[in-house]
């Protein structure tokens, strides 16, 4: 079990945050949510559907998760701010995963609108967790604005491409004084482990679990991957080397042949 962390002074045991998009039904979602060990789950705000059955919020709460509303689907700062306020009204939380999307095909964040929305929401007393590009300068600007965390993407939402720019992610981690949560792009367990090894405080993912062939099994894999990556980071990995470094003693090797050739060193005659 990995040690927990804090967002805006709130302790969290699990370093995995679950997005609830893409599950084929609430039952599968609830099972995966339990197995993931996550304590927070993102939800989106949409028009009431009178034919919808089952309350998403109740199902999540029964599974032991609290809801974190997002502003998915917003393309302007104005829409995102209004959506965050609606979520606060509906769900009674002033936490928001801020998304301001700039493009339908890539769903990449619009940095200019994102920054404006973050400023307004922080000023209005929200705890703002912005979904951001993997840009160290933008991450710093968001942090300076008063965001409670920064959530850089690994790769586009739902793409499953993993972490496209580990260099930028490392720069973001190195400079950040707020938690860094890798958000979006995770395809499988090794991506989540890599994010934690790079020094992220947590990972937020949905599609990798919800669209897996067996979502609860993938939820368990992700839970272990996040814990393994965190512990590996804490343990301190060995440096990368070009050549082998023997782990058995070089002294005391028996001479079993009458004429032993001198071992050849790579790159020399």
């Amino acid at each position, binding site marked *: 079990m990995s040690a927990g962390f804090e967002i805006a002074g709130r302790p969290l045991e699990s370093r995995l945050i679950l*997005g*609830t*998009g*893409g*599950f084929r039904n609430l039952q599968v*979602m609830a099972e995966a949510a339990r197995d993931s060990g996550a304590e927070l*789950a*993102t*939800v*989106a*705000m*949409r*028009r*009431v*559907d*009178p034919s*919808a059955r089952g*309350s*998403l*919020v109740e199902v999540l709460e029964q599974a032991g998760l609290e*809801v*974190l*509303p*997002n502003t*998915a689907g917003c393309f302007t700062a104005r829409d995102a701010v*209004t959506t965050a*306020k*609606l*979520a*606060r*009204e*509906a*769900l009674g939380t002033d936490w928001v*995963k801020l998304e301001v999307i700039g493009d339908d095909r890539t769903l990449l964040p619009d940095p200019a609108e994102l920054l404006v929305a973050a400023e307004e929401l922080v000023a209005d007393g929200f705890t703002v967790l912005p979904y951001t590009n993997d840009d160290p300068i933008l991450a710093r600007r968001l942090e300076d604005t008063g965001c409670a965390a920064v959530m850089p993407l690994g790769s586009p*939402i*739902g793409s499953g491409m993993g972490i496209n720019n580990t260099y930028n992610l490392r720069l973001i981690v190195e400079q950040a004084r707020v938690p860094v949560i890798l*958000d*979006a792009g995770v395809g499988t367990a090794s991506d989540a482990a890599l994010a934690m090894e790079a020094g992220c405080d947590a990972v*937020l*993912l*949905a*599609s990798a679990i919800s669209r897996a062939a067996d979502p609860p099994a993938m939820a368990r894999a992700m839970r272990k991957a996040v814990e393994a990556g965190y512990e590996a980071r804490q343990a301190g990995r060995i440096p990368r080397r070009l050549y082998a470094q023997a782990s058995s003693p070089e002294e005391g090797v028996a001479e079993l042949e009458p004429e032993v050739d001198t071992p050849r060193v790579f790159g020399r005659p």
Partner: protein
Amino acid sequence: MTVVTINGERRELGEPVTIEAAVRAAGAPDGRGVAVALEGEVVPRGEWATTEVSDGQRVEVLHAVQGGS
């Protein structure tokens, strides 16, 4: 009759139309877990009973659905 647009649908409702009535008409009878925007501005729950919707205005009635990453 007052004609208002609730969640994108034109509805004819007996006047006066309050936000509370619009929320019922949207299919959320008890209004739990629901938030309302009138002409793009949030109407706090405490003002639902007293806020009137005028002819031609747009009301959005939202709740939480599955979403995120």
